């Protein structure tokens, strides 16, 4: 955060933008964990892309398509060709932290957030655990800040199908 030369009102505006962007990330987590995929989709722009890696399925484009994709991923519907390849299970808890935000302009920003997730897997007593990162691009819209591109990166996992691109190292 480089704010030293800014006025109080400019600083407050940026801090408010940061809080609103954080809220979008938390709303996404809460929505997925409560199976409210319509609310989850409102975290994304109409043209947003969602890329959880080739092992999860194809890159999904559009908030409505993301809603369908996520709803299926948390269902027990059979996996079809060219479809989302993962069935997460019966319950989930997404813990978002370490949020770093960089503004590219007054109406665009990039964020990196850590996410630890617990999944009660279908047909498996052992929980699925994931440690990863969300790399998001945000755009300010008439309805507030929304994610216009998401990429999932993976640090580690237990009892969980492959998802996300490996975290780059070095």
């Amino acid at each position, binding site marked *: *955060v480089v*704010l*030293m030369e*800014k*006025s*109080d009102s400019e*600083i*407050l505006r940026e*801090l408010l933008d*940061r809080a609103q962007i954080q809220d979008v990330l938390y709303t996404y987590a809460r929505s997925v964990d409560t199976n409210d995929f319509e609310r989850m989709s409102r975290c994304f722009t109409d043209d947003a892309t969602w890329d959880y890696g080739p092992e999860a399925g194809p890159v999904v484009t559009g908030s409505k398509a993301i809603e369908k994709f996520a709803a299926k991923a948390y269902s027990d519907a059979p996996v079809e060709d060219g479809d989302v390849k993962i069935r997460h299970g019966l319950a989930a808890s997404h*813990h978002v*932290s*370490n*949020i*770093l935000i960089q503004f590219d302009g007054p109406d665009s920003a990039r964020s*990196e957030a*850590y996410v*630890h997730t617990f999944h009660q897997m279908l047909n498996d007593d052992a929980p699925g655990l994931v*440690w*990863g990162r969300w790399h998001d691009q945000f755009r300010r819209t008439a309805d507030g800040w929304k994610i216009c591109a998401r990429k999932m990166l993976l*640090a*580690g996992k*237990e009892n969980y199908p492959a998802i996300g691109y490996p*975290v*780059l*190292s*070095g």
Partner: protein
Amino acid sequence: MSDPAVAELMARTQIEEVLYRWARAADLRRPEEAAAVFTEDCTVDYGPRFPHGPLCGRTAYVDYMRESMSDTALAPGSVSKVRTVQCSHHFSSVAIDLRSPQEAGVVSRCFSWCQHRNGHTRLHWSVFLDTFVHTDDGWRIRMRRNVLTHAQHRT
């Protein structure tokens, strides 16, 4: 900037960012970048897990980080007792006590997943007790004490 409340909000944001930049750099295996969040004269204390005592100075910290990420064999002289290949440090519960515009005490919780070179993975629940100071380069950690609450072998 003239309002002290605005200055405090800004300081809080910047201090949290320092914690997260440290985690990001450590997890991306960038020792110099991780060490850059500390002052030149920093002290980093991992407690009784470190038989050689606290690390004193940024250079000692970089050396420790490099060793922990290396494929060198553990030896009696090793400062780091682990060799990691991948980690993920998840911070939360960040409590900031701004003692003055120049110094802050920060207590945070960290839940971390680490994969070691021998293939084993471990979970750690720990507390970071940090003293931050404001420098010409922004907020930096002058003293860090890490208290391990629990470690669990997974595989």
